[in-house]
């Protein structure tokens, strides 16, 4: 029966079985043909790129992995063991990079706060998260729990913010700035479009002033000049000042991004809201802002990423972020001169965080894309 089928050359119209596509137009070969060798220019570029990769990759792999040292007590030992990167430096100082100068016995609190933060972020960002409504309520009290865990008091050993540093500091500045600058930015953007002159010009003045001054200057003012304006003896926490400045700075940029979104919402939408008898705030909340924010997502995430990376500037006011910890560590005679390792390590950390934010924004854009 099957043998007869193989030799059959003639088919009734409409009965021909589906044949697999020819080898060259499917799977990896098709992909390679279409993407790498589709035109003479592409062929040349592909060959050049392959040549560069061939030149660069083996050396990089050798330096970072195969020739690298992972366990050693100091740099001389690293050198004696192998010729590549001395990752032992990072391994030995892993805690310093993560927690800064936070007391060793209390570090579990930072870890716990970070785990809770992850839970909150997942609950807020992922709609199908189990138990979401409860977790969202938890997110509202999370900032207070986190502050209690990190700062201590009420039964926990108090830890001064001077001891904060490393990735922990970056995450604190980044998350606080991101969480506060968005609502503040929305208010500023709405205020800028307000019909009430006082509100309008206050918002315009604030936005233009903050945008006109570099962040580093604001931080400097926060760290040193503020002592002159406050009554003598006032002790205003340095980290708190930084958080306020970073938030204000980001919210000014955020306001402009959101204003772009607001202006893209057609006037008819607002008129329709008016026609339905909605007052200002319900109209904004239900009709204008959802559309405006959706349009602004790329710009908003852009500002978030910028803010997150700007946190390395805190070194000018004596707070040691991962980069600062790295630079200070390089001055230890045990490890002097390993700057490539430090910078690469910090770069990888920032890349992972920022890339995750960028991917989430793409996901959000796709999800909210309603086709008009």
């Amino acid at each position: 029966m099957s043998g007869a089928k193989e030799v059959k050359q003639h088919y009734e119209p409409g009965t021909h079985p589906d044949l697999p596509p020819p080898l060259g137009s499917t799977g990896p070969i098709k992909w390679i043909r279409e993407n790498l060798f589709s035109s003479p220019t592409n062929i040349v570029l592909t060959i050049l790129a392959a040549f560069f990769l061939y030149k660069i990759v083996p050396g990089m792999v050798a330096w970072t992995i195969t020739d690298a040292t992972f366990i050693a007590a100091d740099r001389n030992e690293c050198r004696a063991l192998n010729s590549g990167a001395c990752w032992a430096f990072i391994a030995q100082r892993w805690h310093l990079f993560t927690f800064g100068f936070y007391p060793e016995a209390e570090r579990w609190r930072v870890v716990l706060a970070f785990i809770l933060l992850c839970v909150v972020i997942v609950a807020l960002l992922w709609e199908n998260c189990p138990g979401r409504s409860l977790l969202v309520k938890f997110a509202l009290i999370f900032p207070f729990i986190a502050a209690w865990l990190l700062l201590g008091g009420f039964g926990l050993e108090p830890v001064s913010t001077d001891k904060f540093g490393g990735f922990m500091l970056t995450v604190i500045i980044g998350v606080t700035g991101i969480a506060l600058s968005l609502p503040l930015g929305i208010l500023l953007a709405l205020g800028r479009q307000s019909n009430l002159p006082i509100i309008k010009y206050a918002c315009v003045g604030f936005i233009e002033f903050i945008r006109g001054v570099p962040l580093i200057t604001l931080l400097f003012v926060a760290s040193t000049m503020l002592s002159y304006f406050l009554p003598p003896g006032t002790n205003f926490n340095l980290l708190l000042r930084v958080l306020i400045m970073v938030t204000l700075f980001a919210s000014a940029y955020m306001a402009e991004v959101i204003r772009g979104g607001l202006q893209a919402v057609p006037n008819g939408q607002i008129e329709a809201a008016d026609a339905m008898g909605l007052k200002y705030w319900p109209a904004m909340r239900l009709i204008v802002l959802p559309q405006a924010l959706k349009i602004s997502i790329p710009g908003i995430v852009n500002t978030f990423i910028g803010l997150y990376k700007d946190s390395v500037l805190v070194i000018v006011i004596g707070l040691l972020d991962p980069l600062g910890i790295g630079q200070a560590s390089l001055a230890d005679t045990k490890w002097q001169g390993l700057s490539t390792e430090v910078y690469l390590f910090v770069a990888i950390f920032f890349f992972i965080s920022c890339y995750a934010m960028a991917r989430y924004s793409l996901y959000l854009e796709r999800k909210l894309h309603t086709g008009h």
Partner: protein
Amino acid sequence: MKKSIKYAAAVAAFTATAMNAQAATLDDVKARGELNCVVSTGVAGFAAPDDKGNWAGFDVDFCRAVAAAVLGDGEKVNFVPTTGKTRFTVLNSGEGDILFRNTTETMSRDADLKLTFLPVNYYDGQGFMAAKALGVESAKDLDGASICIQTGTTTELNLADYFRTNGISYEPVPVETNAEAQTNYLGGRCDVFTTDASGLASTRASFENPADHVILPEIISKEPLGGAVRHGDDQWADIGKWVVNAIIAAEELGVTQANVAEMGAEAGDNPSINRLLGTEGDFGSMIGLDAQWAMRAIAAGGNYGELFDRNIGPDTAIGLERGLNAQWSDGGILYAAPIR
């Protein structure tokens, strides 16, 4: 940014006197229970965090000695890391109580920036390092060389002076920190690395092939490094001054970290030691402290020789000789004023 820092510094200088006239730093420190000590963001041997995150180094040990004298515990220090540019603003704004940040004492810093310098704790001088392959034997051969230089330091100014006096030209490559200068130098972005001689030695020691680099014979400047406090609080300046003097005097008198408790327990035969350790006279109360102030300062890290040997001496990776920093009785110029 430069402008803003200048502005900040100007306002700092302007208001410092007015603000600090009534502020007694000693009371603030005691109330806080912690000494805010301005250090660098990392200079090998002088201040750097170790693997556990504890600050260590020559400058750091002086901070601890002051904290021990004032608060009774050398651990009660909050280190405020600063770059060369921000250090004085931080001190003047009150964010720091005292500064030990390998800082050169100069007239303009003393008078114009309104600092009061403590006795010199390290005599340094600026030198040059270049790759051996460059074939230079003297700094005078450096015409047209590119030089990595930390901004906001006296090194920067000395360099300009030296090249101008000798009628040769150079191309400055400004960098922010010592680590950055080192990376740039090794990466070939500048031909010459210049900083204080102590920094050159420690930097070269960390290179893969130290023998490939020469330290040129010229020392082009005087760099008396010392601590500093703000103008306007003489009692606090006295505390800093006499703690440094006590540490230096302790070496001269043979008081060490190990024997200080025993020597200070009761008055001995040497009246100088008795006065230093508070078993004779009433010197502590003159600076607002108790009689055991110097004893605690010495017990925190040891005398000058011990601090030197532990952090930057010949047995460390930095390997500096005492040189000018030996006691006056050993051919150096360390000469502590007497406590009496």
